[in-house]
């Protein structure tokens, strides 16, 4: 728990902590193992690895939070409205969601990232855009199914009988019952988003170089893995740590919001 807090602090206050600029290349200092000057060594261009890892983790965390946040908002809204209204609107929306589900995650992400997101000011915004689109159907499906279940509840029928306005019912009854499940979904998807962002950057479709990202650092390090494996080991270890931290955070989030209420 303490560990999580430390990492969270490090990530959010990165500009103060990172010893060097992540983009600055000191050519004469290439391929250094960790020493007094460069705490985690340097990469092929002489950039400090520690700073790059810090900035890269920060970017990954940002992208994950933003894209899951957008997917959550958009997905649950569509799902709730769809489940509430029912009828042909519901059928259409759920067919679209089914279709998006039929295409495997990475394939969809690659196709979107390669095609549209490249045009939408690529890099960070594009990655957020891609991951939001890929995750929204999950939230929509979960929200819609839960809304269907809530519709069966007696208190829902009672509220309708009392003449309550549909939007009031949605806000006051449906949404609070919806939140635990959707927060669970957020908890599952947050660490997953970090991995997807790293994978996209690794494939060259995510954050554009020279901006640091854990995935692209892995890609760059891979080329000379025989002579300088540290450049790959460091971001790999950092990635595992970040994902673990997010896993713990998600568990905490879930315990706080989901289990206690329901």
């Amino acid at each position, binding site marked *: 728990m303490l560990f999580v807090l430390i990492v969270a602090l490090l990530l959010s206050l990165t500009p103060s902590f990172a010893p060097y600029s992540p983009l600055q290349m000191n050519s004469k200092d290439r391929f250094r193992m960790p020493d007094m000057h460069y705490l985690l060594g340097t990469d092929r261009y002489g950039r400090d690895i520690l700073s790059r890892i810090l900035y890269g983790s920060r970017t990954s965390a940002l992208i994950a939070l933003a894209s899951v946040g957008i997917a959550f908002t958009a997905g649950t809204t569509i799902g709730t409205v769809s489940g509430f209204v029912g009828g042909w609107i519901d059928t259409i929306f759920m067919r679209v969601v089914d279709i998006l589900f039929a*295409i495997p995650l990475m394939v969809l992400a690659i*196709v979107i990232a390669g095609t*549209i997101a490249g045009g939408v000011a690529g890099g960070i915004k594009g990655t957020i855009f891609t991951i939001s689109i890929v995750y929204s159907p999950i939230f929509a499906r979960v929200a819609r199914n839960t809304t269907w279940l809530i519709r069966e509840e007696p208190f829902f029928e009672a509220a309708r009988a009392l003449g309550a306005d549909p939007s009031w019912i949605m806000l006051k009854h449906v949404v609070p019952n919806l939140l635990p499940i959707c927060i669970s979904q957020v908890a599952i998807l947050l660490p997953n988003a970090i991995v997807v962002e790293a994978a996209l950057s690794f494939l060259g479709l995510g954050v554009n170089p020279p901006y640091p990202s854990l995935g692209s650092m892995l890609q760059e390090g891979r080329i000379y893995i025989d002579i300088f494996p540290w450049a790959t080991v460091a971001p*790999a270890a950092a990635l595992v740590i970040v994902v673990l931290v997010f*896993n713990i955070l998600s568990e905490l989030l879930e315990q706080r919001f989901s289990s206690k209420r329901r």
Partner: protein
Amino acid sequence: MVSYVLRRLVASCLTIFVATLVLYTLVDLMPGDPAQIMLGVDAADPIKLQAARHQLGLDKPFLARYCDWFLNALTGNLGNSLQSGQPVAGIVMERFLFTLEFTLYCLAIALCISLPAAFLSIRFNESHVCRMITRIMSSIGLATPEFVWGLVLLSLGWASLGKIPSLFHSPVENLTKLFAPAICVGIVVGTAVFKMARSSMLQIMEAPYISTARAKGLAENVVIERHVFRNGMIPTITFIGIEFGYLLSGVVVTETLFALPGMGRLLLQSVSQRDYPVVLAVASLVTVLFTVANLMVDVLCGILDPRIRYT
């Protein structure tokens, strides 16, 4: 039962049809004009550009183009690659078989790792040591993406795989060479399956019939194997069907890392080269594969649990 399967089949076909429509739309939005890409330098000449556009059928309205593509695809004609001019179907088919084999290999490894591990972790669930080991291993397994395992293996020197012979020509060599990449995906998918199997089996342990079995005097091993494990497999199989999509995705990244001659790498290459017929073909094939896998899982669930047949 038959009507259930038929309904699922119809739903799957519909899904494939609309999914390919979505993919076609996405690919159509790709920046870059295919005629220009194909012509290269000649694209500056407007007459040649117009001729190329007409030849590729780009001046027809969107739905007409889509229907043409779909009907051609059904007969096996997926167009020609923009880069090489070769028919797309030929390029994709050999890679498709490779990816199919690789995917099944990864799935097999995942199951070989996860199912015995789940069995053992439930069998020795009393021991605190066992529970701690389980927690640590599943945390690490889930936190580490496939390509990190791949990089670990690469740095250990399992790098140059050389030419991988087909499964039919020399199966042993094929399997040994593919073991390293398959393990990368296998560990990640296996951990997810392990967690799911374990949680469903833990739920079953609460059931009264387990205490009955023990009271009857059955050995613990037998209780676990006969009752807990088999009943626990039902939701796990559903989960494996859902995970299949993730398996395919993981395969894509690992293929790139180990430079395997599969569809994942083809997808990436063609996306970066703006070779849109190939992108469309690969994405559609993967979707079909995924939909077929889901269909089979649905049918299997219908066989195992009769209540599902009435949905």
